[in-house]
């Protein structure tokens, strides 16, 4: 149980900093967060299942110029906060559906927090412009980073609240089979990726991929 609390309270909001505040190593992507949460909660397979459920949905989104987008990082923080809470409560009914609802709201909350913090950072910029000493500039940076860290807590709190609501009420919803949820994510990912990958222009590679998929399916069907 202690591991769950450390995960929700410290590690998940810290991973959110990776979105663009600290390093951008890809740690906040759902599949990586799934791996880390799985190692923490001891349910690696299920966490990775949630990771691959979330990943394709926002895979096509990227910040062009100074745009703020609804992306996977806020979504995965909220979803894995819900998931960790439900695991702590030993609740397994509709766990993926609840986490997906949480992810949706987390994604919107993440974008909103980004937007607000960018306005607040105008103040930090003014302070930095006045300074010439490295350590003073570093301290101002640290203040901004701590605000982002607090933002991570806010998204985590949203995830936990939705997890709790899910625990109390969403359990009565019909259970949607995992494969349908996964196909839904894959379809959203693939369809929205056509703006990045231009499937019509690159039709040879697209047909090769489909052919390989059918080949894998045919081979797996044989005993």
């Amino acid at each position: 149980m202690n591991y769950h609390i450390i995960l929700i309270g410290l590690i998940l909001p810290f991973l959110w900093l990776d979105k663009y505040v600290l390093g951008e190593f890809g740690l906040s992507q759902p599949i990586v967060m799934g791996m880390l949460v799985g190692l923490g909660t001891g349910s690696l397979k299920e966490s990775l299942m949630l990771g691959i459920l979330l990943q394709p949905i926002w895979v096509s989104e990227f910040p062009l110029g100074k745009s703020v987008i609804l992306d996977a990082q806020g979504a995965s923080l909220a979803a894995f906060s819900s998931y960790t809470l439900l695991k702590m409560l030993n609740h397994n009914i509709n766990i993926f559906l609840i986490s997906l609802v949480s992810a949706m709201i987390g994604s919107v909350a993440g974008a909103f927090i980004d937007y607000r913090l960018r306005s607040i950072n105008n103040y930090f910029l003014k302070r930095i412009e006045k300074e010439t000493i490295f350590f003073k500039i570093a301290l101002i940076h640290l203040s901004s980073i701590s605000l982002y860290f607090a933002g991570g807590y806010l998204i985590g709190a949203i995830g936990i609240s939705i997890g709790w609501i899910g625990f109390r009420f969403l359990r009565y919803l019909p259970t949607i089979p995992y494969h349908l949820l996964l196909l839904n994510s894959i379809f959203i990912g693939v369809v929205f990726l056509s703006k990045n990958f231009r499937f019509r222009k690159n039709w040879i590679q697209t047909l090769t991929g489909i052919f390989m998929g059918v080949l894998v399916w045919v081979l797996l069907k044989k005993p």
Partner: protein
Amino acid sequence: MGVTEKTIKNFVLQMFIQSTWSEKGQQKSGLLFALSGLTKKEKFKEKKKKIEIFNTNPYMASYLTGTLLKASPESVKYMESYYAAVGDDVIWSTLRPALLLFSTFLIMIQGIMGALGFLLMYNIICQGIRLLGFPLGIKYQVNPPKQFMDTFLFLKFIFLNIGIITAGILFTSFLNFPHEILKISVIFVSTVIFYVSKLSPTTTLFVNLLVLTGMEVLW
């Protein structure tokens, strides 16, 4: 400070290039932070006055920081947009989605190795650009050699093909559930309608979840 020492220091400072991203200066505060750690006080003061706004791809910012150590901020201005466009097109739009999609597929067949593979590959390429960009920026200044662009075009070509082929393989996974083809078709058609209507993936997910729940109750 020697170039190697500066390169390592810059690599650490570049981690914070976007940490104080603001509407007015965009990545300016991150750049000033890096420059304050790499240059002497007087030189930093002089450079700071000339930088009004700075925004580029965060991994490419390293090259521009190297260039800025010697070149004037005005001469770097056009390179900023150039590298932003290259970074958006190659890293954000192609490399990252392709690697994520491929890793998702790997997790389906190999488990944890897929996630580890993504971390390793993504960071070797992107943090590599961040690490090596700085000394190259010092060396080539505002005239990067042709090989630079060729390398990025090559990366784009490789990852575009990986991404498209993986997307094709993942798309055909619906073949495993022939008994639910009607439900699957409804989700697919709904997704295409939302994409054509230029709505976001989040909205599409919201509606698709409602449709799926409705189908489970009624169907």
